[in-house]
């Protein structure tokens, strides 16, 4: 089987998608974009390859899954634990970096030792919590990045300490996280997946003890099945994980896209515009799509495609990125809430406060003023989300309107309030007949389009075959 890779190096996140010869997605990888683009794209690609191995595992166990549905759960858990194992390696790297910074930064020995002591305690506190999250809450499948997870926990722990420690500990953090993040960590897939297997076994062995109070009988029964079946499944799983770990992974071709595409270590002919890729990806999932709206980190694109998925025209924001993903990030910071909470909070709005979306910074000022006037946060957020869509509507109009099926792509498509207002306004402007598509993989559309292009129209012999081999490193 041949595989094809698409990498979308966006302004906020870097995504990778691997497809097979039948255009089916077999692997997805995502990470936060950082100063070192190469590391970001390498990580996204590695993640996609790991994910592909798990989906191949799932495919191999198709029959077992049919016979015993619990199998599917084990694979999800195994991948989650695998991610935790990766996380642990990264955490160790970060630990080394923190220690190094401490030694360089604090010249006074007593302070240094004190800080190192605090760092040890912090780590001791948050590590088991994170493990717990991975084990039981599928932290891995929520696309939370290493940086976000650790900084959240680190902040939590630092805040518990004396105020006077805040500044030195945060300085050490700021100085350490970037170098730790901009270095690519090499993982041994086989080793980590086997470690994950051990953890998984522990989890199921201990299940009755970890049962929370107040859960339903059904849930209890489900746990019992999971626990009981694991013993049978273990052997099968073990054989197969070694098989997938050793499996040769042939990336026959790849395409890089996204705003950082020119910086990708790809040959020129393997670089495609994200406009084409988003459209092609969206069209592949929803073939009747004629209009695509993509809201990414720094730009919004309204794209018209033909029946082949080829772009016929596009419009994008110019000179100002207000109303894009970064705008939401800024607003979340202003409100001191996480980006993921914005949408759900806006969904609780009773009305939409009128907010200007022409400038991100001004919107911040407007937000404070409105809060001061006593407007509810939910209503302000409702207004903000609507404002973003109003801006996007003008781009859609400029690109020629919405036809047939309308597909919404990009990271912002995960925000429920954005989806709500978009649906409302598209229907209002282009009629109730128009079908609005939002795929769970909306954020991966650009990378998917890239992979599809890689399979279609670039010759199979890569100009730089070393690149393809690099994909395979386990």
């Amino acid at each position, binding site marked *: 089987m041949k595989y094809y890779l698409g990498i979308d190096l966006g302004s906020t996140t870097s995504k990778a998608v691997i497809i097979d010869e039948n255009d089916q997605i077999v692997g997805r990888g995502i990470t936060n974009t950082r100063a070192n683009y190469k590391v970001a794209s390498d990580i996204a690609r590695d993640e996609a390859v790991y994910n592909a191995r798990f989906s191949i595992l799932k495919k191999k166990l198709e029959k077992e899954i049919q016979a015993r549905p619990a199998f599917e759960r084990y694979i999800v858990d195994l991948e989650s634990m695998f991610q935790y194992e990766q996380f642990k390696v990264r955490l160790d790297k970060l630990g080394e970096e923190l220690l190094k910074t401490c030694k360089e930064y604090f010249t006074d020995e007593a302070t240094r030792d004190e800080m190192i002591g605090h760092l040890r305690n912090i780590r001791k506190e948050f590590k088991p919590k994170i493990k717990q999250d991975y084990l039981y809450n599928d932290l891995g499948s929520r696309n939370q990045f290493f940086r976000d997870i650790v900084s959240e926990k680190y902040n939590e722990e630092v805040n518990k300490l004396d105020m006077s420690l805040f500044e030195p500990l945060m300085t050490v953090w700021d100085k350490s996280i970037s170098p730790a993040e901009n270095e690519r960590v090499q993982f041994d897939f086989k080793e980590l997946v086997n470690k994950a297997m051990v953890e998984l076994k522990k989890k199921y062995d201990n299940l009755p003890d970890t049962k929370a109070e107040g859960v339903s009988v059904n849930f209890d029964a489900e746990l019992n099945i999971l626990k009981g079946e694991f013993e049978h499944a273990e052997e099968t799983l073990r054989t197969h994980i070694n098989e997938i770990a050793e499996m040769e992974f042939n990336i026959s071709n790849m395409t890089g896209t996204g705003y950082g595409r020119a910086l990708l270590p790809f040959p020129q002919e393997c670089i495609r515009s994200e*406009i084409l890729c988003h459209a092609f990806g969206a069209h592949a999932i929803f073939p009747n799509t004629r209009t695509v709206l993509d809201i990414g980190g720094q730009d919004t694109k309204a794209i018209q495609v033909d029946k082949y998925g080829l772009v*016929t*025209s596009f419009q994008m924001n110019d*000179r100002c990125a207000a109303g894009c993903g970064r705008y939401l990030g800024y607003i979340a910071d202003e409100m001191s809430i996480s980006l993921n909470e914005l949408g759900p909070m806006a969904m609780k709005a009773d009305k939409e406060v009128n907010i200007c979306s022409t400038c991100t910074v001004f919107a911040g000022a407007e937000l404070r003023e409105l809060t001061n006037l006593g407007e509810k946060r939910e209503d302000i957020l409702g207004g903000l989300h609507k404002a973003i869509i109003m801006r996007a509507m003008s781009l859609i109009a*400029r690109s020629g309107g919405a036809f047939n099926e309308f597909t919404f792509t990009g990271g912002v498509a995960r925000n429920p309030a954005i989806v709500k207002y978009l649906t409302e306004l598209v229907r209002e402007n282009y009629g109730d007949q128009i079908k609005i598509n939002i795929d769970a993989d909306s954020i991966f559309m650009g990378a998917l389009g890239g992979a599809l292009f890689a399979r279609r*129209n670039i010759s199979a012999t890569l100009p730089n075959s070393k690149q393809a081999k690099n994909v395979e490193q386990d």
Partner: protein
Amino acid sequence: MSKAQQEAIKERSMVLQKDMLAKQFTELSQAKELGKKVVYTFVPGNLTELILSFDLLPVYPEINALQSGMRKKSAAYIRDAEKIGYSEDVCTYVKCDIGMMLNGNIGPTGEKLPEPDLLLLSYTGCYTFMKWFENLERLYPGVPVAMLHTPYQEDGIITQDQVDYMVKQLREEVIPKMEMVSGKKFDMDRLSAMMENSVKSEDLLVKVLESAKSVPTPIDAYFAGVYYIGPIFTAFRGTSEAVEYYQELWNEVQQRAAAGLGPVTPEGELKEEKFRLVMEGPPNWTNFREFWKIFYDMGAVIVASTYTKVGGTYDTGFRHDPTQPLESLAKYCMNCYTNLNLPQRIDLIENYVKEYKADGFLINSIKSCNSFSAGQLMIMREIEKRTGVPVGFIESDLVDPRYFSYANIKNRLESYFQMLEQRKIILAQQ
């Protein structure tokens, strides 16, 4: 790389044109000593032959502004104009021009430009022109203003009434003021004789522009096109020098075509013509070469453009008429691209796409130009509908470097060219 290599390649006609322009600016700088009178006027609907028939020297503030833009002087001029109250949204040609005057009216070549003796407001399709000259009137108190109103082709036709209306203005307003300023009597025979030269130049210009119909094209009708139209408008149409220049240019183009050579660009000859485009809107002048290079790098060439028709739509058949000099001046003004209504513009572009075998249609929308930007999206959609070629839209500005975002423009153009390429590949596979 040596300095000589870095310099743009120039054809003989380009050198000739450069010399003509240099001579023109030198003459302007000495106008007062030579006792010559100066007329400030606009490119669209210019009355060059009439001006020259009075031995007046024309100055084109638009040309000065774009030249200042190309020579990286416009940013400071615009800043100075904004300092005295011109808003951010005002046409940057205007601000650049005003700023240049505030700074001693030193022209693009470094020579001082003479003050005007007459402000000839040949208003054609752009309201800003009126405001521009109202401001010049204030900057040069006492200088007479002659206003020539060109009726917009609202219905897409030129009626006899409109021609009569314009001829009346020429006879009663423009010519008397020119006589007053120049101290000379209007000489219809001289004007008519000049128009014979105009016709020759115009015939040659059309041949040059239409050479782009061949595949591959020997010329670029937008970036290079602005060079080709240059001398005709900047004071030479109607002179024997203009005829000579166009003859030279036409010879070169024929030679290039015969040898199967592509257009000359500052980066060298375009070796492989990958995309043929029709372009609407003025170019950006502050980053002109960079802008052109993006096209060059992608193997894209402009085979027809509307901006080169701002000073007249000769390719649709108009010629100055030596037998009816004033009437033909009237028709000329009304036929300028910016004076055409939107359906006429769309028909023109549609013909370009078809006749020049274009792969796509691209709009460069100018932030500070209302007369060009109005209707562009409608034009774009209509062209897409009628011709089926992919359309593209980019945004920049005339001479304000703050509005030229290289990364954004490159990103869009790259996407657009890939869109054209992908289309070719996938459609070939279907």
